[in-house]
């Protein structure tokens, strides 16, 4: 009777190398780490984009405030001229951002409120809200407010 002797050149420690499961787990951990790094970059890009859009929305709100600033409100002339009323500043859709190809436009909407604070002395409050949508998941508002007296 002849027995084949199982023989290995390796000692016990060398036989216990990486198994397939261990390799897969190691690869999974590596992929998680790389995904984490890339995810961090993507998050920072999204944050930068959000900040840029927020700045643009603020600028658009300021533009509207400046337009109301230029409205003629003269109480010393005859007849008095008053362009500083809410009907003269209806809701306005503005473009906050678009790419070079003209696609991917982000819109905002300016809502203008004008209210009388005081009659004597005459003073009005101008409030502009620029409402915009970030990636279709979050509604954000940038507001600007100022007070204005009549033209001299």
């Amino acid at each position, binding site marked *: *009777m*002849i*027995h*084949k*002797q199982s*023989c*290995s*050149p*390796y*000692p016990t*420690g*060398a036989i216990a*190398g990486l198994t397939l499961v261990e*390799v897969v787990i*190691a*690869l999974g951990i*590596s*992929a998680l*780490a*790389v995904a984490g*790094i*890339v995810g961090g*970059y993507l998050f*920072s*890009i999204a944050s*930068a984009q959000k900040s*840029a859009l927020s700045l643009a929305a603020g*600028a658009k709100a*300021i*533009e509207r405030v*400046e*337009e*109301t*600033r*230029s*409205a*003629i409100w003269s109480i010393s002339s005859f007849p008095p001229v008053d*362009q500083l009323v809410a009907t*003269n*500043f209806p809701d306005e859709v503005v473009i906050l951002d678009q790419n*070079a190809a003209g696609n991917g436009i982000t819109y905002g909407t300016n809502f203008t409120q004008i209210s009388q604070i005081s009659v004597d002395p005459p003073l009005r409050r101008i409030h502009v809200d620029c409402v915009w949508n970030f990636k279709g998941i979050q509604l954000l508002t940038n507001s600007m407010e100022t007070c204005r007296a009549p*033209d*001299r």
Partner: protein
Amino acid sequence: MKQLPCLMASAQTSTRVIAAFTLPEALISTTLFLLLLGGVVGANLFGMRMYQLNETKLKAGDGVRKTLGLMTDEIRKCKNVWLGNATNGTFVSLLDAEPQTGSALLIQPTTNATNFVLYFLNPSDQSFRRSVTATATTTIMAQTVTNTTIFRAQDCFGNILTNSQNNRVIHVTLEFFQPQPWLPVGDYSKLETCVTRRRLD
């Protein structure tokens, strides 16, 4: 019972030698290491590219925001403001009945007509410049400006004016284009703002 002699095992082989990787093990290990290294390097290259893109935008945006901030302050508190065009640094004002759009803006802080600040586009090098007569200096405020009509005067409803009436909004538009060596498409950006003079007489 007869046992076959083990051909591979050798009593003379030391433990250090037989504990080494075989060729397949070494190849697999190297491949895995290269994959991991490639992933990390790729992620860093991607991040560097994004960083460069954002750095360019932020730097350009920061400089121009400072410019616009200074200009809006000067317009708000000025005594008078004129739109026109600048040729070789010489300002030519727009006349009445002409659409109030141009590449230069002259701001007079006081009633002294010889004291003014001039913002203008130099088309030869696409730079946006600020010239102050009080200090006789001209500084470059922004570069790679591509649009030639930077300023326009409009009424409160957004209509472009054809005269220099008192109540008007100065609309400023600056468009920039910077080629990107890393990208097939250059970086385009646009800044807009509106300013109204506060001292309406």
